[in-house]
Structure formats: structure tokens, C-alpha cells
């Protein structure tokens, strides 16, 4: 079924009886040409582009819970292309272009809103680093505008500019940055993949990966064995467990990242604002809730809830930056499990096992990457070759020393 404004109006007139489920609920077949493990944003986008770009439609996405139950439905939805290092820069640039065509490509409203992202800086040294980053963004063909303090004040008059610890010197504005509705992205790719013949199999946990003579031959699941000569592991925070089923040890440590949302308010924050020095960032959702977060809890964890010290730290940072939010009531907080890599950059690569591919290491930045990761992982699984914009996301780069340490913080998993 195609969605349109006219459809909404006619359905409204006739009691909304004509809507049909957005995707089928098929039973797993005995064999597929390819299997995607994990029905998060990246797995669904991979399935969609395998079908759309490469004509591979006899494929299944196996999801242990329901579509959208993982980080794709838990993140704070920032979409941006303000990376600096060659390798990251072209990838996220490609991703942002895919975002800009996503709604028409999927025939789905993902509420992508390019409201502008402002990264604040608080010293001369930081300004110089931001000038350099802005130039890298412009060289990549994306947009960046350096704002001085008065420039920031025009956009964000409500900040406390004179705070003693981190007085605001200015900001780097990325006008094409913004946010989107996270679950809609999962639903849109799920529906698009289903329409192209992909089987989305929910409540189907992969419990084993079958390998014979160095080649993958299929998987074991809670709904029986399923054969396939190509298998992609795309399970975010659970990457280490699933890779261990194939006898692999990944360069990943799982950490928890928390986020918070307030009661709905009238529009007050029109941009995405990032306060790196204080470990705080914020935007306002279309429902009116202030959505904000900070840093990792800093120690390896699989508990989908966080610890109180980070709650306190995030609230303090928020109050330092914009005291007005002290009036808002926090409604909810939650956590998601992040697949942290030692250099903070992702992996989209083959493994030493023939037909087994891995897409992981998204840290806390994998939402914006959903379309390009799907695009590049599909390219890799279909052709056996890395896509041009993802060719540095190698699994062996830690061993060979070709790190992509965007923040320059060193090879410790929790420092990115």
C-alpha cells in the first residue's frame, strides 16, 4: 500500500478501516540466499539495499525480539555529517545524502528535520580545532559555518554565555544536521524491505552459526535451523556474543549510554545543541519533549539501565549550559547497549570465514549511519568487495595500525 496525504484523508473519512499491516509476518523458510542477523536500523537497511540495489530478494532478517526494540528505538536521533578524518568523512557525507532522499525512497515519513546542529566551543584552542573541522566538512562538500559568540547568541539566546567554567566563545553550525523519528526509520526500512520480498522474522533469536570447511552454511535459531551461504552479523551491542558463535573475538566492548526526555513543552529549542566540554547535548522532539543525554557510564555493561552518577552529571551539565531547563520535569530515562570499538569508528567487513560478514562498532553514533551502513554492507555482501566510502572500516585495522581515531583519545574502548 502506498502512503499519501490523500490516503490519510480518505481513510479518515471512511473510519480508517482500509489500513493493512506495514509488513508480513512470515514463517522462516528452510533456506535463503542471505541472512541478516539483527533487525535494528542497520540490519533492516542492509536488507532493503540488498533487495533494491542488488536484486537479492530471497533473504531474511532474523530478529530476536521485535523490530525497533534495540538501539534504533532508544537513541537521541541526531543526524549529522561533521566528521573530519578521511574514511569517516566521505562515509557520513554519503549517509547524509541518503537521509535527504530517504522519505521519498521509502514512501515513509521519518520526520527528518534539518534544523541545524551547533557544536559549542569554549577556548581559542578549541575554536582552531573547529575551524579545521569545518574546513574538512566543506572540503567534503558538506556545510559548516563558524559562529562567534554573538552569532551563537542570535540562534541560542537562552544559553548562559558567562558561566565561569566554560564561557561560550562560539560554535560550529552545521545547517544540514538535525534529527529524525527513530522508530520510523526502522519501520520505513522494514516496510520497504518487506515490499521487495524480504522475510522479516521476529522473535527469532540466532543461537549458533554453522560453519563447514571454513565457510558459513547457516544458522541455528529458536525457530529452527536456517541455511544460507551468506550471513551478516548486524547486532550492535550484542556483536561479541554473536561473533563468538563463529569462534571470533571482536575488538568491541559493550557500554551503556543513557538518555532522558522531559514532559512536552512549547517550542523552545530549535536546533540540536552540543556542549562537548560538559558532556551534554539536547534537542526538542516534535512532540515537545526535551531529549538530551551525555556520556557513557564508562564501564562495560549489558544492563539496559544506567547508574545515578551519570544522571546527576548530565543534569548538572544541562543546568550549567541552559539554566531555563531546570523548570522542565524529566519524564523518563533509559539506556542502550553500545558496541564500543577501540578507535571509536565502525567496522563493515568480511571475516576470515567465507560468507560471514560483520557490521558493528557503531559506538553512540550509529543512528545517522543507518542508510550508508545498510548501503555499504549490502554492497559488501552482494559483491564481496568493500564499498568505496566504507573501505577503511576494516576489521583488521587495529592489528595493522590503520586506526580511525576521530577524537584522538587512544585505543581504549570507553574513551570515544
Amino acid at each position, binding site marked *: 500500500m502506498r502512503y499519501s496525504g490523500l490516503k490519510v484523508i480518505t481513510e479518515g473519512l471512511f473510519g480508517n478501516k482500509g489500513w493493512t499491516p506495514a509488513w508480513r509476518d512470515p514463517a522462516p523458510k528452510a533456506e535463503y540466499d542471505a541472512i541478516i542477523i539483527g533487525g535494528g536500523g542497520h540490519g533492516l537497511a542492509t536488507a532493503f539495499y540488498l533487495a533494491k540495489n542488488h536484486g537479492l530478494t530471497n533473504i531474511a532478517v532474523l530478529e530476536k525480539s521485535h523490530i525497533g526494540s534495540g538501539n534504533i528505538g532508544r537513541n537521541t536521533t541526531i543526524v549529522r555529517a561533521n566528521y573530519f578524518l578521511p574514511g569517516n568523512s566521505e562515509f557520513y557525507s554519503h549517509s547524509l545524502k541518503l537521509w535527504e532522499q530517504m522519505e521519498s525512497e521509502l514512501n515513509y515519513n521519518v520526520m527528518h528535520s534539518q534544523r541545524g546542529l551547533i557544536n559549542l566551543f569554549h577556548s581559542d584552542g578549541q575554536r582552531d580545532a573547529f575551524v579545521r573541522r569545518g574546513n574538512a566538512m566543506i572540503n567534503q562538500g558538506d556545510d559548516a559555518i563558524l559562529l562567534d559568540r554573538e552569532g551563537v547568541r542570535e540562534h541560542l539566546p537562552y544559553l548562559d554565555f558567562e558561566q565561569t567554567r566554560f564561557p561560550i566563545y562560539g560554535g560550529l553550525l552545521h545547517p544540514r544536521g538535525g534529527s529524525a523519528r527513530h522508530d520510523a526509520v526502522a519501520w520505513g526500512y522494514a516496510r520497504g524491505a518487506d515490499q521487495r520480498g524480504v522475510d522479516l522474522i521476529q522473535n527469532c533469536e540466532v543461537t549458533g552459526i554453522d560453519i563447514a570447511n571454513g565457510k558459513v552454511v547457516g544458522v541455528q535459531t529458536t525457530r529452527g535451523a536456517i541455511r544460507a551461504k551468506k550471513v551478516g552479523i548486524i547486532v550492535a551491542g550484542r556483536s*561479541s556474543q554473536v561473533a563468538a558463535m563463529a569462534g571470533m573475538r571482536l*575488538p568491541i*566492548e559493550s557500554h551503556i549510554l543513557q538518555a532522558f526526555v522531559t514532559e512536552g513543552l512549547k517550542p523552545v529549542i530549535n536546533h540540536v545543541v552540543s556542549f562537548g566540554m560538559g558532556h551534554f547535548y539536547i534537542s526538542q522532539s516534535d512532540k515537545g519533549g526535551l531529549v538530551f543525554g551525555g556520556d557513557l557510564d564508562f564501564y*562495560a555493561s549489558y544492563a539496559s539501565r544506567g547508574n545515578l*552518577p551519570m544522571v546527576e552529571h548530565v543534569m548538572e551539565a544541562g543546568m550549567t549550559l541552559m539554566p531555563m531547563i531546570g523548570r522542565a520535569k524529566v519524564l523518563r530515562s533509559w539506556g542502550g547497549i553500545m558496541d564500543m570499538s577501540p578507535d571509536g569508528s565502525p567496522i563493515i567487513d568480511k571475516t576470515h570465514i567465507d560468507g560471514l560478514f560483520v557490521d558493528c562498532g557503531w559506538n553512540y553514533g550509529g543512528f545517522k549511519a543507518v542508510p550508508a551502513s545498510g548501503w555499504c554492507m549490502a554492497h559488501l555482501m552482494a559483491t564481496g568487495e568493500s564499498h568505496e566510502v566504507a573501505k577503511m572500516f576494516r576489521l583488521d585495522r587495529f592489528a595493522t595500525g590503520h586506526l580511525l581515531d576521530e577524537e584522538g583519545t587512544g585505543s581504549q574502548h*570507553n574513551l570515544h
Partner: protein
Amino acid sequence: MRLKCPLCGDRDRREFYYYGAEDYLHRPAEGAPLADWDNYLHLRDNPAGVTKDLWYHEQGCAQWLVVTRNTVTHEISGVELVAERKA
């Protein structure tokens, strides 16, 4: 979360710095093959369950600790001094 430091007793999590898995205790010998260094620095078991990791009692006795804990429940089942382990 609280950790029971063998020297300082039961203390708030904020007094400690987390470094990473106890793999960091097994530094390869000089001249070891590159794969050993990769294993030591980057590759991790990363279990969902019981794990051992290294914490530093930064705002206490300044000792390195090996903590045995559950990554799913955050339950702590043991805290040892690295100094005593090696001895």
C-alpha cells in the same frame, strides 16, 4: 554501584576510574608477535555475564583493583588488589 576496596572499604563508584577488561594485566613480552599485541589492546571477550575488569581507586588508596562483577546485573562478587595478585 559501589565497590568494596580491600583497603578502603565500601565506596561510591565515583571514586574509581574504569580502565577495561583484565586482559590489560597480561602484557605480551617484548618482541611478542603483533597478534598478541592486538589481543592485548583491542580484542575482548566482552561477556554478558560475569567478567573481571580493572579499576583504579583514584580518590582513595590509589591502588589498581581487579573487580569480578556481572555486566548484566551489576552485582559485584569480588574485589582484589592487583599488587597482591601479582605477588
